[in-house]
């Protein structure tokens, strides 16, 4: 049976330079070994050092341990106790200890030996050094991405794949950038367009579509833990959709990523805090709010602030700050004290940190600080109603329970306020709250008081930056910040290629996977911050941190445009396609699968923005696990609400839409920066039987009749082309035609069943079409919408 060791060795061989190459590179070859196998006990957590030995920094590693032995003697591996211990056959001596279930391979030991022999040189962790722009490998290809990738492929003895067919390419890039398929007309136009720049024109057109912003916002909602409920226990509703609108708009107007960042972290603290900028700060009010009876407010205030720290770390910095709330980080040079210095930026919002809506009690609605989004007329009205309440209050002094006039005035004000949209935002208190190190991360064990600060292993706040959230945000996007640009560029890469240059896109610390193309990653990070070759998009030249320009740049590369055919050799050599000797091929997200079906069927309602809607969801999903709270008794919308894009679906955290959870959507209870991509029978059941897809199949079948021509074969060919983007091969169309004819037989004999099928869904079946035929075609459309290639972007 395969054991751990050969696989790790395989990893080392695949992604490290061959051992024959002179010189061991510390960050690439040694740090990952030390981090994985040693740091937990001999690493940066200074309070938990075993045997007085620290291996994460050279000055410590060279000192004798408590026993007097020297773990590392530079240049003298035979005298280095570290090597003796890791190959020891004695269970009491061997390192790591057997109970850790880690064992180093022969290849890894050889690397360590060579490293010590060569002088045991350390390097600072790669992700904490500001990226330098490396030289693009010359003579490979005009596009820098291709140059880097091809130089590496050459080294590995691989060749790039040919370009994908035009139909495949336009479908791929349209789905990648908008989450929707191209129309047949768009496909045909691109296939026919022989003028130079045809593909670039497609990309520009797509980047200008509002659907682009919606699709990009969808992923951002995962990071932001956006939901329409407060979370916990009864899970009452809240109203944060105006913030979601802000995100969509920010992507569509191509707001630079640095401004996007600063406004969400600290829009309220900018010199000119416009309404838009304040709404942006809703990012850090998207966390859950606990209103459970019996909770201890201090505890949940702390959890609220900690959520902001952890979310910021994961989303922008690729740091697992959650690992140092209770103790120093075991792998990264970040202390618990620094965690709480980071905490100190976020703990002075004018809030309780718990759920307080109606009458200061837990219930449905938004919790202060809240920004009402009224028009000037509405604001006037609100002021009038407020002054009426005040008058009634002074008039009713002494009257127990308040006069009827007071009750009426209050009720009217409340009703009015409920009709005005509002959004939860950040708003600082006058006086900051004192922060403390919390011992073992526990809310009721304050230790040393701390002020605001950033980890010492990263650059300091920029010159002149204020010591508040605004300064922190500026620090996150400063030129000197080594993490943010790399992390974001890696995320964009992950989105387009299926897996990041750094596979552990959630973690750029010492335990991160070594980047498969570090030079390319750094080049892209620098280019993103200070563009020199990023293209203009729709006539606008690239700005710094230009999101559309970055996307366009990547999709224009030949690497992106490669065919995604897998050969057996590639499956053996590079099954996860890290080297990119072929185009990426992977399943669409659950949201894109649904949106695509709606688009292809013609049912999609393209309206952008606004309150969340209620598409189909099985009865009782909200009620099975709770019998109180206001998010119960789910009734789907009638009309347009059923057919909006999935990012608008109302989201209750404790009972999230099952059709999305089945497709790996996170519950939105906490920040999630990466989704798994599963392949399960429950997904199959959903795509075959869920009313959304059955109705979409029927609507698509109706289109087949209206637009597909007069014969079965014409209609099937039309539908195949519309749904997959390509012409069906004769063998494929034959399969479909055979199935259709058999069904026609069946349904003509069972008109009742046919009628039942086409009645699925809220929209009415076209009465001019013969019922059995429509039913038979509905199942043909059902087949097409279930094809692997349709729910995949190829």
């Amino acid at each position, binding site marked *: 049976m*395969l054991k*751990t060791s050969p*696989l790790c060795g*395989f990893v080392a061989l*695949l992604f490290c330079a061959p051992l024959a190459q002179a010189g061991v590179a510390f960050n690439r070859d040694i740090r990952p070994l030390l981090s994985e196998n040693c740091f937990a006990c001999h690493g940066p957590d200074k309070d938990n050092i075993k045997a007085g030995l620290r291996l994460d920094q050279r000055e410590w590693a060279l000192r004798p341990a408590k026993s007097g032995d020297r773990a590392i003697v530079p240049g003298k591996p035979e005298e280095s106790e570290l090597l003796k211990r890791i190959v020891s056959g004695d269970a009491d001596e061997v390192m790591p200890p057997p109970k850790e*279930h880690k064992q180093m391979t022969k290849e890894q030991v050889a690397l360590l030996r060579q490293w010590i022999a060569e002088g045991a040189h350390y390097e600072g962790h790669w992700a904490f050094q500001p990226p330098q722009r490396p030289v693009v490998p010359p003579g490979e290809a005009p596009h820098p991405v291709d140059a880097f990738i091809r130089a590496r492929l050459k080294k590995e003895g691989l060749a790039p794949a040919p370009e994908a067919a035009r139909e495949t390419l336009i479908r791929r890039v349209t789905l990648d950038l908008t989450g929707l398929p191209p129309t047949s007309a768009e496909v045909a136009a691109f296939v026919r367009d022989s003028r130079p720049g045809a593909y670039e024109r497609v990309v520009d057109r797509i980047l200008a579509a509002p659907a682009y912003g919606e699709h990009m916002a969808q992923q951002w909602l995962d990071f932001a833990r956006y939901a329409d409920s407060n979370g916990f*226990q009864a*899970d009452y509703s809240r109203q944060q959709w105006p913030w979601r609108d802000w995100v969509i708009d920010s992507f569509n107007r191509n707001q630079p990523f640095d401004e996007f960042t600063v406004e969400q972290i600290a829009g309220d603290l900018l010199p000119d805090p416009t309404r838009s900028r304040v709404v942006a700060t809703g990012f850090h009010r998207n966390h859950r709010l606990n209103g459970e009876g*019996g*909770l*201890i407010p201090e505890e949940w205030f702390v959890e609220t602030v900690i959520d902001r720290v952890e979310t910021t770390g994961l989303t922008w910095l690729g740091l697992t700050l*959650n*690992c140092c709330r209770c103790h120093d980080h*075991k*792998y990264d040079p970040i202390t618990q004290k620094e965690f709480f210095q980071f905490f100190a930026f976020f703990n002075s919002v004018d809030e309780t940190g718990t759920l307080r809506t109606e009458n200061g009690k837990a219930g449905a609605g938004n919790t202060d600080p809240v920004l009402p989004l009224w028009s000037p007329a509405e604001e006037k009205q609100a002021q009038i109603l407020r002054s009426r309440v005040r008058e009634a209050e002074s008039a009713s002094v002494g009257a127990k329970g308040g006069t009827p006039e007071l009750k009426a005035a209050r009720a009217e004000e409340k009703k009015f306020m409920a009709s005005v949209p509002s959004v939860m935002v950040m708003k600082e208190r006058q006086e900051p709250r004192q922060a403390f190190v919390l011992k073992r991360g526990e809310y009721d064990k304050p230790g040393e008081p701390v002020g605001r600060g950033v980890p010492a292993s990263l650059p300091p706040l920029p010159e002149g930056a204020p010591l508040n959230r605004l300064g922190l945000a500026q620090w996150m996007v400063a030129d000197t910040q080594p993490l943010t640009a790399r992390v974001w560029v890696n995320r964009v890469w992950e989105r387009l290629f299926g897996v990041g240059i750094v596979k*552990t896109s*959630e*973690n750029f*610390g010492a*335990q*991160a996977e070594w980047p498969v193309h570090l030079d390319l990653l750094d080049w892209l990070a620098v280019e993103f911050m200070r563009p020199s070759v990023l293209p203009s998009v729709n006539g606008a030249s690239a700005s710094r941190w230009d999101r559309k320009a970055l996307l366009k740049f990547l999709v224009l590369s030949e690497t992106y445009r490669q065919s995604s*055919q897998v*050969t*057996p050799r590639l*499956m053996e050599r590079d*099954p996860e396609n890290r080297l990119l000797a072929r185009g990426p*091929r*992977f399943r669409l997200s659950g949201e894109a699968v649904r949106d695509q079906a709606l688009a292809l069927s013609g049912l999609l309602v393209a309206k952008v923005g606004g309150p969340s809607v209620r598409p189909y969801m*099985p009865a*009782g*999903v909200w009620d*099975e*696990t709770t019998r109180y*709270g206001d998010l119960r008794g789910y009734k789907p919308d009638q009309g347009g609400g059923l057919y909006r894009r999935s990012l608008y679906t109302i989201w209750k955290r*404790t009972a999230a839409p*099952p059709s999305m959870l089945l497709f790996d959507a996170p*519950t939105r209870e*906490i920040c999630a920066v990466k989704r*798994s991509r599963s392949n399960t*029978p*429950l997904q*199959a*059941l959903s795509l*075959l*039987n869920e009313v959304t897809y059955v109705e979409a199949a029927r609507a698509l079948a109706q289109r087949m009749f209206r637009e597909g021509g007069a014969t079965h074969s014409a209609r099937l060919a039309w539908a195949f082309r519309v749904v997959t983007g390509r012409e069906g*091969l004769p*063998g*494929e169309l034959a*399969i*479909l035609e*055979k199935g259709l004819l058999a069904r026609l037989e*069946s349904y003509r004999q069972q008109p009742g*069943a046919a009628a039942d*099928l*086409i009645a699925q869904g809220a929209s009415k079946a076209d009465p001019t079409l013969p019922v059995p035929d429509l039913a038979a075609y509905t199942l043909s459309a*059902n087949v097409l919408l*279930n*094809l*692997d*290639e349709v729910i995949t972007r190829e």
Partner: protein
Amino acid sequence: MNCNDSILLALSREQREAVSRRTFLGRSASGIGLAALGGLLNSAGAAVSPEEKPLPHFAPKAKRIIYLFQSGAPSQMDLFDPKPQLESRRGEDLPGSIRKGQRLTGMTSGQKTFPVAPSIMRFAEHGQSGMQFSHLMPHMSRLADDWCMIRSMHTEAINHDPAITFFQTGSQLAGRPSLGSWISYGLGSDNKDLPAFVVLTSFGSGRKDDQPIYDRLWGAGFLPSKHQGGKFRNQGQPVLYLADPKGVDRGLRRQTLDEIGGLNRAHHAVMGDPEIQTRIAQYEMAFRMQSSVPELTDVSGEPQSVLERYGPDVKRPGSYAANCLLARRLAERDVRFIQLYHMGWDHHGGLPKALEGQCRDTDQPTWALMSELKERGLLEDTLVVWGGEFGRTIYSQGALTETDYGRDHHPRCFTMLLAGAGIQRGKVLGATDDYCYNITQDPVHVHDLNATILHLMGMDHTRLTFKYQGRNFRLTDVHGELIRAILA
């Protein structure tokens, strides 16, 4: 057809289904040739984590678990842990020497006094073991010689959401995988037509605003989402989207699946991506589930005598009794982790009457389930667990009268019951002090219980890990000791 096709085709359908490229390459960046595939499958055809030696780590005692979670926290002193001598202290303020500064929830921390509320239930010894149960459990007490009772459970959480989350995921804070998904990840499914992890929820006599539960309790956390618990719904279709739409019979559905399969195979011949083959296999599994699940949930073939054992509620879908019957049927079909949640135990007030209702909901069906398992020879390799998220306070929440009292949450001691595979029979472990407030003997923590459950399933809790955010996470975090005193 390429060489990898032939290797894949040489595997049984089960093995092909169990292994998708992602399943076993999910965390390792290495390129395992498909030729190595066969070696990575254990005898049940389940994929194993390449980071670990094949699972299980050692021979399991239990092939399956039935976890009967009693949500809301059953009152231990009114059911399992009698303190008759407390009657003489009725109404006295709980001494500080007993409370020892324990943090109270916001619901009672404002009380001026904490009057001792002795249980008004009647206790008796049962069976050869003499295990004590209150009169509210006439049925479960008949199995006194099968149960193992742990009176010394303890936890840190004092409120429901974090406490149940802690029991199920090993952390009070959201984001970690549940016990069932760890087991699914480690061992896969023994039944090729049903999921490895099934969840059944029920309401009974509990009050309308008793504690809810949440998807996260059976969620997969950071494990691949296929390991999330499959919740059988308590109304309507048991599994979502299982039934074909109206107007599509099995024949028509089979035909469409043949078309989808045929087209997918044709496309695979062009694209070569093994994910396509996995998808074909998953569609076939879906088709099989469309028969296997209704077959499972259709209890009309059960003899009347069997149904009667579970009590009158068995006919009401979504009742605890109906779920217990389903649990036995799931066990017969080798579903590995069967978890029931019965809500309504959170008795802050009106406890005596409410507790009676909860026991009426659960006592007889639990007995029926256990007896059936015994009779069918399933108890020997099934682990049964019964309990809630924490205990209740000996002092009354709200007014104490001769006949009525309430109890607040109490993390420091509570009782759980286990039975079946690998568990000593008729055993009582642990003891609490005279006030049923502190543990005096053999404390057992939530992590210890979870470590023991994994152990009985054949897994070392310290070796069942998943690398996430650079750390090898496990269900028991860095804690958990086996409860050796109860192991057979």
